[in-house]
C-alpha cells in the first residue's frame, strides 16, 4: 500500500513537472504557407514576414517569457493539402496558426482550426472568409468588401471613369473581389463594360487584354494574383493599352513590379500595407526586412509580420497562453503602434475577425511604388 501511494505521488510529481516545463518551454506556432505552386510569391513573403517578427520577438525575450517555436509547412497552394496540414498543426498542439494566404485554401483549412478552437490568421481577402460565423479566423489585411468601395470612389472621383472593364482570376480570391467590385461600381453609377475571367496560373494574357481593349471602357480594373498581374501588365503594354489600369493590393506590389518591369509603370492600386508608406515604423520594417532577406517586402511580408505582433500583443494582454481566450480577446480589440510598434499601423478587429486601419493609394512610377494618398480607416480607431 505504501509502495502504491509512493508510486502514485511520484507519477503525479513527474506529470506536474512535465506540464510545468511545457508551460515554460517554447510555444508552438505553425505557418501553413504557399511555398510552392501558384501562390509561392505570396506565401513566401508572408512566411518571411512571420519569421522576421518571430526572430525579433524571441531576441527580446519571447512572449510572456516563452520563446516562439515557429515552423512553416508548404501547402503547395492546394486547399486539400492546407486542410491536412491544418489538422497536423492541431495534432501538434499549435497555439496559433498563421496562414494560408490564399482565400481558396483558408476557406477549406479553417474548418480544422475552428474545430480545435485555435486562432487562425490569414492573408486571404475574400469577403466570405469572415462571413461564415467562424470565431477563430482573423485577417491580416482588409476584406474585399471594405477595400473595393474605397477604390470605386477613387475611380469615380479621381479617374472620372464612367465605364470599367474587369479582369479577374477565377478562384475564391478573384471571384470575391469581382463580386465586391461590381457591387461597389454599381453603387457609384459606373458601368461594367467587360467582365473578363482568367485562370489561376494563366501564362498567356493576349486574349483577356484584347477583350479589354475591345470593350473600350474608360479604365481597366485588374484583380489577379502577383505572377498573373505581372503577365497581364506585360501583355497590356505589349498590346499598347493606354487607359488607366487600376488594381487592389496586388497590382502595384513589389513582386509584380519586379516581374513586370517597365510594364508596371502607371499602374494604380489601393493597398492596405506598403513598405513605401511614409510612417517611420514602416520604413524601419522595410530596412530590417531588406537586411534579412536581401529583397523588398511586398504587402504579404507585412501581413505576416504584423500578424505575429498581433499574436504577441493579445497574448500579453491576456497574460496567458490560452487559444480560446485569445480568440475571445481578438474580437473588438484595438492595438496601437505606441504599445506594440510591430503592428506598424493602429489596427482594430471587429467581431467577425475583419480589421480596419489606414490604407494607401499607390502608383508605380519609374519602377517604384509611390504612395499618392493615405486613406483613413473606415471608422476612426479610438
Amino acid at each position, binding site marked *: 500500500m505504501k509502495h502504491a501511494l509512493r508510486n502514485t505521488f511520484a507519477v503525479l510529481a513527474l506529470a506536474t513537472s512535465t506540464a510545468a516545463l511545457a508551460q515554460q518551454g517554447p510555444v508552438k506556432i505553425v505557418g501553413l504557407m504557399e*511555398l*510552392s*505552386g501558384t501562390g*509561392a*510569391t505570396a506565401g*513566401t513573403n508572408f512566411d518571411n514576414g512571420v519569421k522576421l517578427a518571430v526572430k525579433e520577438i524571441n531576441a527580446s525575450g519571447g512572449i510572456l517569457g516563452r520563446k516562439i517555436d515557429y515552423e512553416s509547412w508548404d501547402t503547395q497552394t492546394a486547399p486539400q493539402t492546407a486542410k491536412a496540414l491544418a489538422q497536423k498543426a492541431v495534432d501538434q498542439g499549435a497555439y496559433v496558426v498563421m496562414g494560408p494566404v490564399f482565400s481558396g485554401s483558408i476557406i477549406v483549412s479553417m474548418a480544422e482550426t475552428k474545430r480545435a478552437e485555435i486562432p487562425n490568421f490569414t492573408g486571404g481577402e475574400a469577403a466570405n472568409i469572415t462571413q461564415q460565423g467562424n470565431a477563430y479566423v482573423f485577417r491580416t489585411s482588409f476584406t474585399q468588401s471594405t477595400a473595393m468601395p474605397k477604390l470605386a470612389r477613387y475611380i469615380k472621383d479621381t479617374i472620372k471613369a464612367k465605364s470599367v472593364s474587369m479582369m479577374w482570376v*477565377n478562384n475564391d480570391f478573384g471571384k470575391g473581389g469581382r463580386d465586391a467590385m461590381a457591387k461597389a461600381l454599381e453603387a457609384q453609377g459606373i458601368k461594367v463594360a467587360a467582365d*473578363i*475571367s*482568367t*485562370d489561376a*496560373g494563366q*501564362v*498567356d494574357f*493576349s*486574349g*483577356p487584354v*484584347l*477583350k479589354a*481593349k*475591345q470593350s473600350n471602357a474608360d479604365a481597366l480594373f485588374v484583380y489577379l494574383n502577383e*505572377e498573373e498581374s*505581372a*503577365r497581364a501588365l*506585360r*501583355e497590356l*503594354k*505589349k*498590346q*499598347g493599352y493606354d487607359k488607366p489600369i487600376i488594381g487592389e493590393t496586388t497590382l502595384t506590389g513589389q*513582386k509584380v513590379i*519586379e*516581374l*513586370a*518591369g*517597365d510594364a508596371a509603370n502607371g499602374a494604380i492600386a489601393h493597398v492596405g500595407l506598403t513598405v513605401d508608406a511614409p510612417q517611420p515604423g514602416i520604413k524601419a520594417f522595410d530596412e530590417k526586412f531588406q537586411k534579412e532577406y536581401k529583397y523588398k517586402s511586398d504587402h504579404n511580408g507585412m501581413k505576416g509580420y504584423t500578424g505575429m505582433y498581433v499574436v504577441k500583443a493579445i497574448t500579453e494582454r491576456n497574460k496567458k497562453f490560452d487559444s480560446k481566450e485569445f480568440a475571445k480577446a481578438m474580437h473588438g480589440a484595438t492595438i496601437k503602434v505606441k504599445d506594440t510598434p510591430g503592428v506598424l499601423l493602429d489596427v482594430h478587429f471587429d467581431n467577425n475577425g475583419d480589421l480596419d486601419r489606414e490604407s494607401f493609394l499607390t502608383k508605380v512610377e519609374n519602377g517604384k511604388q509611390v504612395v499618392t494618398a493615405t486613406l483613413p480607416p473606415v471608422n476612426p480607431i479610438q
Partner: protein
Amino acid sequence: MADFLQLIISGTATGAIYALAALGFTLLWQASNTINFAQGEFVMVPAFIMLFFITTTGLPLWLAFLLTCAVAMLLLGYTFKLAIVDPLIRHGVIPLVIATLGLSIGVKQLVKAGVTAQALPFPNPFPDGLLALGDLKVSYADVGTLVVAGAIVIGLQMFLNRTVTGRAMQAVAQNTDAAKVLGINVKRMVLYTFLINAVLAVVAALLVTPTYLAKFDMGESIGLKAFYAAIIGGFNQTRGALLGGVLVGVLENLTGAYISPAYKEGVALLLFLVVIIVRPEGLLGKSEERKV
C-alpha cells in the same frame, strides 16, 4: 478588322513558339522513335540557364543565349540521349515515355527545390513598342518572334532538304536499315537530331520566357500544347509541327477574344481530339503501314 488581323498575327507568333517545341517532338520521333514528354522542361531549363549567365556573370542576353545553346546541346542533347534514350529505346516506346514523364517531374522538382519556386523576370530580346500599319498595331515582340521562329523553321527545312547531312538525317528517319546500308552514320545522325532539338528548346525559351516568366512549371503548358500541335500537324512531318503550332496559337487567340478567355485553354485539346478521331495521322502526316 484590325483587331482580327492583330489576333491572327499575335496568335501566329505564339503558335510559332509552340511549333519550335513541336518540331522537337517530330524530329526526335522520326530519327529515333522517341517521344519526349519532358519537352516543356527542355524549354524551362534553358530559361534558367540563360538567367544564370545574365544575373551571375552579367553577360548580355545574346551571349547568354549562345552559351546556353552550348550547355543545352551537352545537357539536353548529348547527355539526355546517352543517359536515358540509348539504354531504354531497345525496350520500345513505352518505357521511354514513362522515363521522360519521370524526367519532367524530376527536373521541375529539382528547379523548384534547388533554384526557386517563385517566378523570375526575364529580359525581352525585342524592343518595347508597337508597329502601326494603319489601324493595325502589332508589337515588336510579336514581329520579332515571328521573324526569329520563322527563320529557324525555314532554316531547318533548308538544312534537312538541301544539305548532305540533312538528307542523311531524313534517310535515317525514313528507314534506318536502308540508311545503314547506304553507309550513313546512323548514330551520328540521331545525335544531330537531339542536338537540334536542344537548340530549338533554347530558342523557344528565349522567345516565350519574357511573357511567361521563368518558373519551374512554365514548361507544362508549352510541352502539352507542343505535343498537341505535333499530333494535329502530323507527328511524322516537320511541316506538320509548324502548321499544328500556328493553328493552335491562332485558334486560341480567336476563341479567347470572340468567345471567352475561359475556353481558350481547351481549344488545343478539342482540335487534338477531332484530328485523332478524323485523321489520326495528322493534317499533313502520312499514314504508316506496318506488316505483321
